[in-house]
């Protein structure tokens, strides 16, 4: 079972350089509404996350992920399935 705290910390670390708005990052932070990322930033971010965790996050999966916390949960599931 991967450490959820560690997953969260890695996600926050990957968000930081893309956080142009300097929003405070919490589990409840919403990618679209709070960080205001455009589609290219989302693509870069997803690629970074996929590289860091060696997983695939399809667009179908992305459509269900709204907040940082939901992404961490999805990553926990994906890592358990490996």
């Amino acid at each position: 079972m991967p450490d959820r705290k560690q997953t969260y910390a890695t996600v926050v670390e990957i968000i930081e350089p893309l956080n142009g708005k300097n929003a405070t990052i919490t589990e409840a932070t919403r990618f679209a509404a709070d960080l205001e990322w455009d589609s290219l930033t989302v693509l870069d971010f997803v690629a970074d996350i996929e590289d860091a965790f060696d997983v695939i996050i399809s667009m179908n999966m992305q459509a269900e992920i709204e907040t940082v916390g939901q992404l961490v949960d999805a990553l926990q599931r994906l890592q358990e399935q490996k």
Partner: protein
Amino acid sequence: MTDLFSKFDPLIEQRAALLESGITDPFNLVMEKVESPTVAICNGRRTILLGTYNYMGMTFDSDVIAAGKKALDEFGSGTTGSRVLNGTYAGHKAVEEALKEFYAMDHAMVFSTGYQANLGLISTMAGKDDYIVLDIDSHASIYDGCALGKAQIVPFRHNDIEALDKRLKRIPEGAGKLVVLEGVYSMLGDVAPLKEMVAVSKANGAMVLVDEAHSMGFVGEHGRGVAEAQGVIDDVDFIIGTFSKSVGTVGGFCVSNHPKFEILRLVCRPYVFTASLPPSVVATAATSIQKLMDSADKRAHLWENSKRLHAGLRQLGFQLGTDEPQSAIIAVIMPDLKKGAAMWEALLDEGLYVNLARPPATPAGMTLLRCSLCALHTSDQVGEILGMFAAAGRATGCIS
């Protein structure tokens, strides 16, 4: 009652704001008369057409028109039926034969539009548990095909070979994999590195579909597209194409050497549940495809036009979508929608029609003036076009 149209309010407001400035609506142009593949009458004014995708200028070819008229007389105005019921006439088989010969492939299947060809192939082949890996800048018909089939969609950065490879390697073992690429990307007119991408796809056990809508007829030795030009056409499983560009009419198709290809005629819903193309359309398409096989001189002139327009626009100080001309599409990058619409209107006033493209159709939120050249644009016309760009660019402050 919730008005289901309220979701369109932001777009309605954006449009209203643009039109309030008194500008001609760029998405409502009417061609009152069409004189030739390169000239039409718009708002009573003679206008050079530089945004039609009529790359090979086949729309007014005398043989093509004669074939259409003959089919109209002999087979009537429409089939009123699906290909699998009463909608397959001799002409539908003939145009499929012409495609097989043009591409030197075993199978060809004709759809009523290019959009339906992508929609049908992709949604039928890749289902819920399969993975479709596609370029982020793929055409809407490709994304819609993915959505209709409910497959897992995995996009990668535009033309990035390493990003494609990485994603293919992470797909769970045993899952079906389809890589979808385009030969020429229509927004910027740039070409895909198909040689490398097809090799990477094959090495990872994926099937490959390439949409060659914007390259058929003039890219590659036989005009088969970018896959031919880069020497990988034999490794491509499916080529998607259209009759609405170089062929000069309407319709879509897929060609393939897959041994089980013909079963698609029974299981592909966008093929089965729609009326087939009218007899006159398939007759014009077949004649046009046969003539495209033997059009080396026209291909050479089209490339000349493309190179000259690209170099000329660059010299005037416009920012272009590609450093070198890679296709018959040359995209002029505008600073924003307002300036783009003003420049579009200034060009129309000069007597030139180009396509205005804006987000979300464009990559990275760009506003573009897309120029697509025709093999029948004369050298004089290209000169005229450059003069119009110079005048309109200065009038709108796009260039100094």
